[in-house]
C-alpha cells in the first residue's frame, strides 16, 4: 500500500475556521473540490461514495466478496443483512480504518487507504458498540472528540451545546457518561459523530439493543439529519429500520450483494403485496405444506410458522379454512424487507 497522510497544508485548509463561524461546510467543500481531480477515475457529479468490486479477505475467509455500489450526496443508503454478512467490514473500509484487499473505493473522491485522515475528517462514525470516553463528562466527550479533528475550541464550544440540544441531552451536559441510559449513550455517540459537521454519517446498527421508545427517538433524530441533507450510510438487520430510514439499500449476504433498490421496489420485485402468516404448532408447520399447495403465489415453511405470499391475504386465508385446515393463529400483513431477504437467501434476517 502506498504510504501517505494528510498533507499538512490541506489539513490547515480543512480545519481553518474563521473566528465566530459555526459552519465547516464551505471549508469542507473547498477541500473536496481541490482533491477530486486526483482520483483515478471520473466520478459522477454528486456521488460521495463509489465502490467497485470491493473485497476484503481475512486469511481464507472473504468477509466482503466483491461488492459494487455508489451513494449520492444527501442519500440515505442502507446495508441490510444478517450478522456476519460483511456489513461492518464494509463500513470500516468506508470509514478508512480497515484497508481493502482489492477493488476500488472512493470517498468524496479520495482513496481511503492512502488518504485516511482526510477521508475521516469528512466522516461521522457511530460504531456498533458505543465507545464513549467514560473518563470524561458528557459535554467534554464532544469537545475532546472535536479536538481529535484539530478543531478549535472557539468553534467547538457553541457546537457542543448545539449538539447536546439536538440529542436532547442539554440537562446531562455535566453528567458522567456511565450514568446515562443506553438510549442516551447512543444519542451522545450520534451527537459526537456530528461534531466535525461530517458530509457522510456512518451508522453501524444504530438501534441494536435499544428499547422501542429509545429507537423511535433515535429514528426521529436521524430523520432530521436526513432532512438537513446529511448523507446517511447505515447497516441494520432490522427491516423496519431500513424501511423507515433508507431511500435505497443493498441486501447483503455472505459478503455479496443479493439485491439493490428502494425498500418499496425490493418488496415489489421480490415479494407479493401481502403475506399470510399461519402457525400450526411446532410439529406441523413443516409438514402441513402439502395441504397448502396452490394457495397464493408462493409458500415458505419455517420451523415456527408458514408464510403464504399472496396478493390478497384475506382471500388466501379463506382458501386455507375452506380446505378444512385450522391454524392456531393467522395473521395477514404487508410484505416487508424480511420477506425479501427470506426469498433471496432462504434464511431469516434475525436468527
Amino acid at each position, binding site marked *: 500500500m502506498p504510504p*501517505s*497522510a494528510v498533507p499538512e497544508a490541506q489539513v490547515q485548509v480543512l480545519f481553518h475556521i474563521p473566528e465566530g463561524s459555526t459552519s465547516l461546510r464551505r471549508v469542507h467543500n473547498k477541500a473536496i473540490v*481541490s482533491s477530486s481531480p486526483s482520483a483515478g477515475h471520473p466520478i459522477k457529479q454528486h456521488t460521495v461514495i463509489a465502490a467497485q468490486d470491493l473485497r476484503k479477505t481475512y486469511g481464507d475467509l472473504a468477509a466482503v466478496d466483491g461488492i459494487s455500489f455508489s451513494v449520492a450526496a444527501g442519500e440515505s443508503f442502507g446495508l441490510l443483512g444478517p450478522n456476519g454478512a460483511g456489513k461492518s467490514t464494509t463500513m470500516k473500509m468506508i470509514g478508512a480504518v480497515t484497508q481493502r484487499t482489492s477493488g476500488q473505493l472512493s470517498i468524496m473522491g479520495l482513496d481511503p487507504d492512502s488518504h485516511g485522515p482526510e477521508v475521516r475528517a469528512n466522516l461521522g462514525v457511530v*460504531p456498533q458498540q458505543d465507545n464513549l*470516553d467514560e473518563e*470524561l463528562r458528557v459535554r467534554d466527550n464532544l469537545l475532546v472528540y472535536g*479536538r*481529535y479533528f484539530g478543531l478549535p475550541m472557539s468553534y467547538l464550544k457553541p457546537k457542543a451545546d448545539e449538539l447536546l440540544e439536538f440529542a436532547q441531552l442539554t440537562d446531562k451536559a455535566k453528567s458522567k457518561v456511565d450514568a446515562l441510559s443506553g438510549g442516551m449513550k447512543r444519542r451522545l455517540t450520534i451527537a459526537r459523530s456530528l461534531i466535525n459537521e461530517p458530509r457522510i454519517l456512518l451508522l453501524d446498527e444504530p438501534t441494536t439493543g435499544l428499547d422501542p421508545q429509545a429507537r423511535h427517538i433515535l429514528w426521529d433524530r436521524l430523520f432530521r439529519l436526513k432532512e438537513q441533507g446529511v448523507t446517511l450510510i447505515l447497516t441494520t438487520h432490522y427491516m423496519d429500520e431500513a424501511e423507515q430510514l433508507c431511500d435505497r439499500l443493498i441486501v447483503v449476504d455472505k459478503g455479496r450483494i443479493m439485491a439493490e433498490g428502494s425498500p418499496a421496489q425490493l418488496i415489489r420485485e421480490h415479494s407479493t403485496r401481502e403475506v399470510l402468516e399461519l402457525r400450526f404448532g411446532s410439529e406441523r408447520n413443516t409438514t402441513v405444506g402439502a395441504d397448502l399447495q396452490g394457495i397464493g403465489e408462493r409458500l415458505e415453511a419455517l420451523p415456527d410458522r408458514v408464510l403464504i405470499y399472496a396478493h390478497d391475504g384475506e382471500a388466501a386465508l379463506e382458501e386455507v379454512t375452506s380446505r378444512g385446515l385450522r391454524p392456531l393463529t393467522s395473521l395477514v400483513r404487508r410484505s416487508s424487507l424480511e420477506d425479501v431477504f427470506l426469498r433471496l437467501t432462504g434464511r431469516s434476517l434475525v436468527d
Partner: protein
Amino acid sequence: MSIVTDSHAVAEEARNRTFGPLYSRNAKAVISRGLMATKSTNWLVMLSGFFEPVLFLISMGVGLGAIVGAVQGPDGTEISYAAYIAPALLAVSAMNGAVYDSTWNVFFKMNFAKLYQGMLYTSLGPLDVALGEIFLALLRGLLYATGFTAVMGVMGLITTPWAILMIPASVLIAFGFASLGMGITSFLKTFQQMDWINFIMLPMFLFSATFYPLSVYPQYIQWLIQAMPLWHGVELLRQISVGAFTPATAIHVGYYVLMTALGMLLTTVRLRKLFLK
C-alpha cells in the same frame, strides 16, 4: 486560489513520508484529553503513585537505615543508607509509572474502553495516539520525580546541586520504559499475558542493586543484572545524586537513549500492523 496545486504538491510529498497514514501531527489532542481525564477522575491514582516511593524511603531508609548505619556512596565517601537508596527508589518509581502507563493503561484503553478505536475514527493516526500517551506518561514521571526530589531535599538527603539533574534523568528512564512497554503491550492479548510484565518487574525492582551494592553477587549474576535496564537507571541516579560522574555515566545514559529508540521503532512498526490492516 492556489489550493489545488499546493495540496497536490503536499499530498505527493506526504505519500513519500514514512509515517504517512500513521500520523496527523495532532498528538496534542490526545494529550489534552489525558489531562482532562486526569482532572476529572484519575488524580487519586496519580497521588498514590507519588506516595509509593516516599513510603519506601521512610520505612527502608529511615527505619532499616537506623540498623544499617552509613554505607559507601558511589564516590567512595560514606553516606546515610537513606541517601543511598533514595535515588534507586526514584529510578524504580520512574520505571513503575512509565510501565503502568504504557502497558496496563494502554492495554485497557485498547481492548476494553475502546478509546483508541474512537480516536482512530477521527483524523488522528495511531502515531498521534502513541506519542500523546507516551508524553502523558513522561509528564507524570516528571511530576513524581520533582516531588520525590523535593522530599529528598526536605529529608536532608541532597548534598549537591547536581542532584537536580535526577529529574530530567528520571524522565529519560521513564521514556525508555514507556516506549518499549507500549511496543510490548501491542503483542499482548490477555490478562494472563499482562501478568508476565509484573513477573519481570518485581525481581528487577528487588535485585537491581536497589537496596545494596551489586558486589554482593557472584560475577555472572552481576552481568545479568547489568544487562537489565533498571540497574542502569539506579546507577545513573545514584551517581547524579552525589555528583560523582564516571565514564559509566555515559553508558547508562546511552543505554536509555538506545532503549527509547528501539522502543519507538517497535511501537511504530506494531501500530502499523495493528491499525492499518
